[in-house]
């Protein structure tokens, strides 16, 4: 990354001092302030053209612009000292911005010099500041200030010592009998990224309704498949991580993606289709954010609630269609998600009076059948608030009895992958 030259630094600081002093002395409604802010915004853009971010850290009598220490003297030094005093009073250590803001957002930041009594955590200020972040902020705080996510609460129980993690990885590596330490570590991180990502964007979708970030989802799936190709055993080991109550959705979707990828690879699907299956698995339930809270409260549902839940695939499809007008592959993904619960066979009464299962034609797409099995297996073996996790053996037995909606050959495949004796 290029560093700022002297002219750019001087330009930015001159504009910053002018706008900050005007805000502090005469408030935000003067013509001079407006002009100074314009100049500061231009200087900020100038910085962005060289560097991908702007960080201004307030010291005792110096400032650091993108880590470059600046000490000013003379009239400029006096103005800086005054502004640093105000910042100190507001317990403000500085700000950082990684995206180009708009002028209103910059105004919200500079307003802190006019109103040092308003805390940096004020909800209105947090809303208006856009991409700006205060340097003093607790880094673990949710970016939207909406409280901790389910993963946050879960992470508080996690082991803090990275050395402990290394020991665990070594243990798994020994037990797996592979030299897959690095691969396992990589896959663990990719998986963690997937879980975190799904949890994060679903939490955000609930609040503000943005589109499903398909591009980033794709990157995660590419990484997962790369991981699978490097070391399938480590991949499957990671896919056995079970979610705990409270963060089911994110784990479930990531697990479905992993298991579906493994199943697809086992039946010889190529990279392209593994990608599609993985992406479907990762996103197959994003529509849950549009379900009423009472449906999502993880309890046994009444009949009408089950009917509403039956609309989940359509809610997911709506979300996916909002994200991107689908190409042929996108249509296939949507078909697969909608066909996951389609019947494979129906019972028909034959001439001799006996009932017999007759395959539905055309059968649901293979992608849907794989996803259905992967999702059902993960759902049943996961602990939920309203029931304990089912054992792998029991799950497979149960799924083998659900031949009308699950392809028994694929259920047996899962049993093989998971080393479950039928």
């Amino acid at each position, binding site marked *: 990354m290029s560093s700022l030259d002297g002219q750019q630094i001087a330009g930015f600081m001159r504009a910053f001092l002018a706008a900050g002093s005007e805000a502090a002395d005469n408030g935000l409604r003067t013509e001079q302030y407006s002009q100074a802010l314009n100049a500061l915004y231009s200087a900020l853009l100038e910085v962005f053209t060289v560097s991908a971010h702007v960080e201004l850290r307030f010291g005792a009598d110096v400032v650091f612009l993108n880590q470059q220490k600046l000490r000013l003297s003379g009239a400029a030094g006096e103005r800086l000292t005054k502004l640093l005093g105000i910042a100190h009073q507001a317990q403000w250590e500085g700000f950082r911005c990684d995206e180009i803001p708009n002028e209103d957002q910059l105004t919200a930041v500079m307003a802190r010099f006019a109103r040092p009594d308003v805390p940096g955590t004020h909800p209105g200020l947090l809303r208006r500041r856009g991409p700006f972040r205060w340097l003093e902020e607790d880094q673990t705080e949710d970016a939207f200030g909406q409280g901790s996510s389910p993963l946050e609460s879960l*992470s508080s129980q996690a082991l803090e010592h990275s050395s402990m993690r290394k020991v*665990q990885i070594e*243990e798994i590596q020994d037990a797996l009998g592979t030299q897959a330490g690095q691969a396992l570590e990589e896959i663990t991180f990719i998986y*963690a990224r997937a879980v975190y990502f799904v949890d994060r964007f679903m939490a955000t979708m609930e609040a503000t309704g943005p589109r499903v970030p398909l591009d*980033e989802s794709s990157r995660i799936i590419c990484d997962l498949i790369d991981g699978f190709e490097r070391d399938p055993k480590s991949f499957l080991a990671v896919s056995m991580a079970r979610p705990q109550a409270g963060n089911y959705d994110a784990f479930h979707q990531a697990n479905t993606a992993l298991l579906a990828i493994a199943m697809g690879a*086992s039946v010889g699907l190529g990279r392209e289709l593994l*990608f599609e299956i993985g992406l479907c698995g990762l996103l197959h339930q994003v529509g849950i954010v549009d379900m009423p809270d009472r449906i999502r409260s993880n309890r046994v549902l009444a009949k009408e609630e089950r009917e509403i839940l039956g609309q989940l695939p359509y809610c997911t499809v709506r979300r996916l269609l909002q994200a991107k007008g689908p190409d042929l592959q996108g249509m296939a993904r949507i078909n697969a998600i909608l066909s996951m619960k389609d019947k494979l066979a129906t019972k028909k009464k034959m001439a001799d009076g006996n009932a017999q299962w007759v395959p539905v034609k055309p059968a649901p797409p293979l992608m849907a059948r794989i996803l259905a099995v992967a999702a059902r297996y993960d759902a049943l073996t996961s602990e939920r608030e309203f029931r304990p996790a089912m054992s792998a053996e029991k799950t497979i037995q149960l799924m083998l009895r659900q031949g009308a909606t699950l392809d028994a*050959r694929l259920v047996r495949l899962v049993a093989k992958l998971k080393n479950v004796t039928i």
Partner: protein
Amino acid sequence: MAAIGALPHVEEAFQELERLLNLRRNSPSNEPAIRAARNAVYQGLANAIDISGTLVLDVEADSTRLTGSALHGKSSAVGQVFGALFHHGLRKIRLHNGLTVEEWDRFLALISQGTELQAEMPGGIATALWKEPLPHLLFDFARRRRLLIEDDPDEVERDQRRVARIVTEMVAKQGAGHARLAAGDLTAATLGATSMGGEPAIRTLERFVATLVEMVEADEEGQDTEILQRATLNVAREAFRAGELRPILRFFDLLKAPAEEGKRAQAIRRERLATLLGGACCDPHSVAGFSGKEDQYDMLTTLLQQLGFDAVTPYLSLLEVRPEPGLAQAVAQGLGVRLNSAAADLRTFLSSPATTGILSHFLEALSELEPSPQMITVLEALRTHQNLEVVEAVADLLSRAVSVNSLEDARRLLNSKDSTEQRAGLRFFRKAGGERAAQTLVDFLNGAADTGWDRLALRRAYACLGAMRSHHGHDHLKKILTATGLTGRLKSTAEEQILAVRGLVSADDRFGNELLDAVMSEKQYSGKVRLALTRMRGVKA
């Protein structure tokens, strides 16, 4: 050091790449120059790989670099392509020993359509490069430090590490050694899918269309209008690209089906979607991408009959790109009367060197069209076309514009020297049918030697007489083929017999066919007549 030795070759390759990109943009039809530049690019890179083993190109915002040396400027054509790749997160390209020209070409093709891929494929160019089997080209993409734009990158990393710890703990708790890869003979094919595992495009499209219609029906308040409209446009585009028109026709049918009683708003939304679908089927970009083969031509005609005037330009342009006789006939039949109002488009189409080979098929397929004055002006120019079949087809088309109101008019037109008028007369006879008309035509043909009609015109007249299927006509044709003189030999000449045969082939009835069978089997008919009959039947078959 090796990389430094490779630098001149890579610099040369990038100069050639610049030339190649400019050629593709400015002179896309200059195939020899493009091929030469393409080979030069590859050769430069191959030479560099020979020296250094592996080339690592650093993709940066302002340039691509090899060992710190910039290989192009920011605003050059190469700079724009690689700048876009940098923007999509590409940071390094590793070229390994064994790189083939096909791999490099595929890579260039992919990065050239970067914007299009970005719009269509999740993950854009990164996913496209990942999916493509390019074993000697490896790519490093920057990992985004944030997942959503609002995220704090450091926070994201910390949270991910936390989750990783949780996962590690979970995996450890599971105990190890359970996972293993499945073996066995289960494959996508044994599971009833295609060998690749996916579904045929037509089934994917039809399932998706059914979903959209369900969504339209469920959309009580129109909140899904935007996504449904976008998806509808995409159905058309993808159907054209896949060369499968049935899903579009099915979509039209479903949208035009009557809505449930009392659901007027839904009926309006359906109608709007149908209009939108029609518009999408006229989108020049989509139409140009149509890849359908012969089995789609009938459906194309049906589809075109449902579209508006907007269809004329893109589908005529399609024929310039794909000058295929069957496609030309399908388009002509589908566009039909709308061509009457598209004189300018038609003139461009008819005068294009690309369409010369399909003109006759196109014009012949306009069988029901009565040309408008504007169209007549356009067609007149083709009356002297070098291709006789085109001239014939044009004359036939023009003849439909000649006004004939009575049998007398038609009889008079037969005496005209103008083939267009002759055809108009014959058409009237054929349309009128009946014994009186047949007798008039027979009378004319009996004296045809005096009219100066050429052989082609006579062929048309006899074909017309046969098609009228009248007793008089049949008697006349039979007489030519069977009347003998005192010596027992046929009175008619072989030429006259061939004309009569043509009439009977055109009649295609039991009586005629029996007689034609006799022509084939009896020795009194010359080989010339039999050969002509065989050809006529072959054409008919």
